């Protein structure tokens, strides 16, 4: 049984990779939708691998439980050793499958991104992460709006509230107060192209900047501005007439944006204008867009998550 599973794994892994390679090669000649369709198949392959990984790891756990019982029952050493080896192998297999699945899904995301850029080149101006415009009048290296780390609590909780942190820039002698640091994961994806949680939609967000397409992807603190959302299914079909809710929070600061942004227009099929975005603070922002739409692909609501580091 174990051997059978092993082959199955190899089949899926190699199948996925073969597709990924071909897809990358044809990227330049093919249209965006073809790329996204290939990516979609990679996502399926990746999901299947993930499932297999889960099953394999669970089999390994079961086997380990059996071994524990066997040890109490006094099963011959040779059999026991074999079973221990099998359980280890299953464990390793599971984690390798998981890695493969991860690789495939990363490859798929790249393809989706490439495909969407080709498909929606008219609307996509910025492909780099959002950055804050540190104009001459912006307070450098400093402070945002406040120091929130906790909601009000019983007075005894006071001890648990941390002190504001201080920071000093290289070219400054003054130390400046800054908001408590947020624990943003190191490897967080700040990309503006994301696949929804249940892999239904693929979307891109960008700030509408006044400048030419070549200008940097900058947003200004404390200034209301407009975003563009390009929303397609993972096959690259524009998603029209979607109900979209916008939620922006700062993890670790227990607060959100000072405004309630919303979709104000669908400029073209699947191209939405989101107005009323305003950031009052530097740092890590998480933007969740909940999408409800009637597509042939899916009717269930799904969430797109974008991480910004301003």
């Amino acid at each position, binding site marked *: 049984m174990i051997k059978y599973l092993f082959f199955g794994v190899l089949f899926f892994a190699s199948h996925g990779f073969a597709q990924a390679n071909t897809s990358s090669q044809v990227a330049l000649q093919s249209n965006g939708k073809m790329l996204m369709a290939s990516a979609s198949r990679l996502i399926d392959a990746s999901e299947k691998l993930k499932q297999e990984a889960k099953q394999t790891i669970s089999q390994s756990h079961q086997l380990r439980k059996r071994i524990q019982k066997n040890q109490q029952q006094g099963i011959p050493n040779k059999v026991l050793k074999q079973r221990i080896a099998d359980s280890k192998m299953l464990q390793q297999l599971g984690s390798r499958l998981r890695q493969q699945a991860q690789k495939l899904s990363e490859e798929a995301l790249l393809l989706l991104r490439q495909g969407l850029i080709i498909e929606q080149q008219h609307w996509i101006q910025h492909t780099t992460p959002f950055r804050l415009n540190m104009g001459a009048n912006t307070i*450098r290296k400093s402070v945002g709006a406040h120091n929130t780390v906790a*909601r009000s609590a019983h007075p005894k909780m006071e001890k648990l509230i941390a002190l504001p942190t201080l920071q000093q820039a290289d070219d400054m002698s003054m130390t400046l*107060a800054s908001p408590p640091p947020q624990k943003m994961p190191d490897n967080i994806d700040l990309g503006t192209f994301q696949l929804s949680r249940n892999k239904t939609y693929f979307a891109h967000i960008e700030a509408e900047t006044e400048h030419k397409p070549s200008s940097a992807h900058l947003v200004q603190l404390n200034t209301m501005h407009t975003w563009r959302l390009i929303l397609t299914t993972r096959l690259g079909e524009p998603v029209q007439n979607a109900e979209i809710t916008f939620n922006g929070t700062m993890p670790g600061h227990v*607060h959100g944006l000072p405004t309630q942004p919303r979709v104000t227009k669908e400029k073209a099929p699947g191209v939405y204008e989101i107005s009323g975005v305003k950031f009052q603070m530097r740092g890590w922002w998480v933007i969740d867009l909940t999408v409800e739409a009637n597509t042939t692909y899916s009717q269930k609501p799904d969430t797109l998550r974008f991480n910004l580091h301003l």
Partner: protein
Amino acid sequence: MKTCLHALIFTSVIIVFPLLMPTVKAAGIGDELTTQDIHFLESFTLSKLPPLPASPSNLYADNMDAARLGQIFFFDAGFSKNKKVACATCHQPKHYFTDGLPRGFGIAQTKRNTLSLLSAAYSPWQYWDGRKDSLWAQALEPLVDKKEQGFSRDQVYKRVQKQYRKDYEAIFGDIGKATPSSVTRVFVNVGKALMTYQRQLKLQPARFDIFVEALKTKEAVSDYSQTEFNGLKLFMGKAACVSCHNGPLFTNFEFHNVGAPEPNKQEVDLGRYTAVETLRTDEFNCLSVWSDAKKQQCEEIDFLKAQAPELVGAFKTPSLRNVAATGPYMQAGQLATLEAVIDHYNKPLPPYYDPKQHPNRPHFDVLPLMLSNVEKKELIAFLRTLTSAISDDDPWWKDPS
């Protein structure tokens, strides 16, 4: 009580200050600051104050005739039920357009502390809770509030018609017959004139501004003391005041719950939480028929955040310009002195929470500072350097009659 308080502050300046005054020569203060430090400090000076924000909801916002008429209205106690209360009753020029009282007092005592008008034209929201989105809409409320001027729209119309018709019509056109819509139009235009007047109120550079200018040019002379300079560094650093009090007006104009003592535990003040509802349904907001703005010019109210736990008990960050001369402090004047304010921030207690009255546990925006007694005094010394001179020779600061 007001006189007592002022005497107290004055005495403490006389007695405490010389003791704290270091012997270091003033010329050497701030010598260690780098160009970037000075650049940073400059962002807090009045020289960096941007031009007045555009006011699409008030067509007359830059009309000087409207400003002059607004000035007359501002000082005219005839716009009140008892003929004794004008805008200037609570917003007194000699107190930087505040009243020195814990809570405003027109015909009766109000719920909130009187805010200075000297930075109001820059704020997207008016009042402590920001329940008005323009200065003209704000100016209308005291006129008809029973505890303030206690007038009615009809009475406002009649007073303008009787007393100011010619000046009014020169700016706003025909006053019209006393129909409900004409009455409201005149009422609204009185508000717009009052706003236009308030946009003329300017601040003179305070000692802080002069100090930074001296650092910049290395020529101008400043008498800034080491104590004040230490306080400045605390303000920007350890004391973290700068987190909310930033920019040339020392405010971010945002709403925060700083856990100030609840003035009335039987009827808690939900601040911004209640104000957003008032704003949305306000007869005079930017989106209303009385506003001169197009819908797309009303972004702040159009994208108003109407629901969030952090709105509960939150109040607007007040400007710290002239703070030492505009006590008592907090939304209901709960804290009498700057010392009490710093003590509060140094060891803040979480906001009062009553599950029966609050929709959720208030979001708490303040961290303990752990300042020593010396540091507290230094911080207050710095805050005193944000006081501008009373603009005696500025005609806008005077009663024109």
